């Protein structure tokens, strides 16, 4: 029998679903409180979304998700079913047909417009609006196969496991399939016959397994029962002196590729999720303490690695490698523990916006999205104030009064959107409003008046906007209660930079402004390049390093007074760190130039020697050194000494400044 193509079946099914949804919606326009129709529409949207995602109709799934969320809220009584909402979903439903017809077309503009209508319809109750995120399947816990290994596996099942469909004999069979097996059942916990329910399991098993298969395949055997059972898999390493890898299977971590946890489309926005997971509350300072301990462990381990590397003892090397792996894993686990969803940060803005709305007489809708994006707890703590400032700014300076908005052809209600999403090792937080945008003329006038720029100076638009981050700059003509209170954008920028982040601003007159903060996900550890300058060791964050070049003494001497190196086709300003740090030492005959960049701006740093890569546990500098902007932190090296971490943003700025001066001097 040949099967029909699932995708064409889906198209047919989707067309039917859309008809059902449409008729349900039309019924609702006559009877808004019809529970059955509300449920039916919700279910239709739900199925459409789920199956759409299944068959690669990602745009459809993402778009439908928003409508589903809206209807879920109606269903739960959070939001009343209104004519406005029903007609918004009706128009959305038409668009879904288009998304079904041309799944790869460019529908962004229409989707966005329709979703905006939907937002309005649910009346600013904070409809989450982020696109669904497809997190790829978690890869197998990566032991490579590599030869025959022997494992000791000890497990016990929940007593009711058989009633829920688990067959312990099947598990044992599966293990036998993996390799040579010795199975011992431990009957110690089996109750006496009269107390015994034959459907319950009281046995514990001890299995010795010889296999070439990786550990992940052994774990696969237990995937269904993992989070309720006790499982201990230990490698019996004949040639290894230390019993290795006694890893207890973490129930929370999806370890196998089979039982994949794909992030479902709706998960990203449901704040309820944070409550439902099982949580253990731990005081934050204990987490910090533990992080410190782990940091010390990583440092001690790197010393051990150094020692073991020079030792002839193979046993020592193997222990050292094992410890290196374990401490690495411990550190990664620790990092994850420190992550918190930004929801905790965003949630405080509802009240603020509500209050500001009353204070200013402006109608404001706050939209948040990406609340489940996780960042280091320290980032959350430190970003609170800057974000409050930015949101205040948007409301105070950005959004117009309702009558002004209406006159400009905009909805009376202004919008402020807070969103977070992760790309690579960074989280991007944006604050966007649909207000009047930044008034360039006023920025210029203000900057000229305060001497920041020459009257009539020619500036690129972006450079002009950047002026608002200058200390003491505030464009509010009258100092209002909200934003003109001395805490300016310069403080926001400094805070973000202290988190090793960057801040960008975009603004279109009449349409609004958008401020984006890019912040590294975790603050505690960076990969660094360890270099020597004079007698001191310094760390350059590897993420900023573009390349390393050698510079001969002749080149160095020749370049004196210019301080540019030519890098392929462009001239890059460079800084001699020996001079910057006043080491008073002679240059190394084999100096190196480390080219670092922030975005498009580059600067070369001349160092005496490149020592190598170094994974760095960042220690913050105390308040007493907050005046030193050249360094963003410090770290402890393998020998226990302290190395300072260079602040890339600052050094690039110094380089640019130097370039500007030299250009000005001709």
């Amino acid at each position, binding site marked *: 029998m040949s*099967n*029909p193509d*699932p*995708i064409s*079946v*889906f198209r*047919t*099914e989707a067309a039917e679903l859309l008809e059902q949804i449409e008729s349900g919606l039309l019924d609702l326009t006559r009877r808004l409180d019809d529970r059955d129709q509300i449920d*039916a529409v919700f*279910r239709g949207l*739900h*199925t459409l*979304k*789920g*199956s759409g*995602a*299944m*068959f690669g109709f990602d745009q459809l799934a993402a778009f439908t998700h928003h409508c589903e969320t809206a209807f879920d809220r109606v269903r739960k009584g959070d939001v009343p079913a209104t004519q406005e909402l029903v007609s918004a979903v009706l128009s959305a439903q038409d668009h879904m047909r288009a998304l079904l017809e041309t799944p790869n077309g460019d529908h962004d503009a229409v989707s966005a417009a329709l979703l905006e209508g939907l937002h309005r319809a649910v009346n600013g109750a904070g409809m989450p609006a982020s696109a669904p995120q*497809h997190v790829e*399947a978690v890869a197998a816990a990566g032991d490579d196969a590599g030869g025959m290994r022997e494992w000791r596996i000890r497990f016990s099942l929940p007593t009711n496991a*058989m*009633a*829920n*469909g*688990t*067959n312990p*004999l*099947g598990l044992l*069979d*599966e293990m036998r399939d993996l390799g040579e097996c010795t199975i011992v059942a431990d009957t110690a916990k089996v109750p006496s016959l009269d107390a015994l329910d034959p*459907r319950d399991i009281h046995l514990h098993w001890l299995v010795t397994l010889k296999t070439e298969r990786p550990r992940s395949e052994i774990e*696969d*055997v237990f*995937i*269904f029962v993992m989070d*309720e059972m006790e499982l201990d898999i230990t490698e019996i390493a004949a040639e290894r002196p230390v019993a290795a890898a006694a890893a207890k299977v973490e129930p929370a971590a999806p370890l196998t*590729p*089979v*039982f*994949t*946890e*794909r*992030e*479902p*489309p*709706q*998960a990203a926005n*449901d704040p*309820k*999720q944070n409550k*439902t*997971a*099982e949580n253990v509350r731990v005081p934050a300072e204990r987490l910090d303490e533990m992080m410190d301990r782990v940091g010390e462990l990583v440092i001690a381990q790197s010393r051990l690695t150094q020692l073991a590397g020079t030792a002839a003892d193979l046993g020592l090397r193997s222990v050292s490698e094992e410890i290196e792996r374990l401490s690495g894993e411990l550190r990664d686990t620790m990092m994850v523990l420190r992550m918190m969803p930004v929801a905790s940060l965003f949630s405080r803005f509802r009240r603020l916006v509500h209050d500001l709305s009353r204070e200013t007489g402006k109608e404001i809708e706050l939209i948040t999205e990406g609340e489940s994006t996780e960042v280091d707890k320290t980032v959350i703590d430190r970003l609170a104030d800057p974000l409050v400032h930015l949101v205040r700014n948007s409301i105070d300076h950005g959004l117009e009064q309702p009558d002004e908005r209406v006159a400009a052809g905009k909805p009376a209600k202004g919008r402020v959107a807070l969103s977070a999403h992760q790309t690579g090792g960074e989280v991007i937080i944006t604050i966007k409003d649909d207000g009047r945008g930044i008034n360039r003329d006023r920025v210029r006038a203000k900057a000229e008046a305060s001497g920041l720029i020459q009257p009539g100076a020619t500036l690129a638009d972006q450079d002009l906007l950047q002026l608002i981050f200058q200390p003491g700059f505030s464009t509010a003509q009258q100092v209002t209660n909200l934003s003109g209170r001395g805490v300016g954008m310069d403080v926001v920028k400094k805070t973000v930079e202290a988190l090793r982040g960057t801040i960008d601003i975009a603004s279109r007159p009449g349409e609004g402004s958008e401020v984006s903060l890019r912040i590294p996900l975790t603050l505690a550890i960076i990969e660094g390049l360890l270099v020597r300058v004079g007698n001191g060791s310094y760390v350059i964050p590897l993420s900023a390093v573009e390349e390393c070049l050698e510079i001969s003494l002749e080149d160095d001497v020749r370049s004196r007074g210019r301080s540019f190196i030519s890098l392929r086709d462009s001239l890059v300003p460079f800084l001699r760190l020996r001079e910057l740090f006043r080491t008073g030492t002679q240059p190394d005959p084999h100096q190196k130039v480390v080219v670092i960049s922030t975005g498009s701006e580059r600067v070369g740093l001349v160092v005496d020697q490149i020592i190598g890569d170094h994974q760095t546990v960042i220690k913050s500098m105390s308040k007493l050194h907050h005046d030193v902007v050249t360094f963003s932190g410090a770290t402890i090296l393998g020998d226990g000494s302290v190395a300072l971490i260079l602040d890339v943003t600052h050094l690039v700025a110094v380089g640019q400044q130097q370039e500007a001066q030299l250009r000005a001097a001709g």
Partner: protein
Amino acid sequence: MTAKILTVDDSASIRLTTRIALGNAGYTVTEAVDGLDGLNKLKGGEYDLVVTDLNMPNMDGLTMIRELRKLPAHTGVPVVFLTTESDGELKAQAKAAGATGWLTKPFDPESLVKIARKVLGR
């Protein structure tokens, strides 16, 4: 004798996909369109595995499995949920109701087969 699997889903395309995947793997697949249909089919036959959606008209997956576990003949049938939900609370409810496993949509048909093999031991 090949193992018999009941798949319960209100989406025809999902039912088809599961049928193709499990059928190609050599299992005998019966389909049900919602929880009520599923429960009736379960009552009327012997199944080695149930793969079911959560959110369905007439009877949802959770109710179906609770009813199923009340039937003495079917207490031990493994039930795997196949759903877009991944909410921890729902999973806990499903566990409590007697679910054996959970696979989140969109899913890889290969994973479904692997899961079936694992649960059925063949």
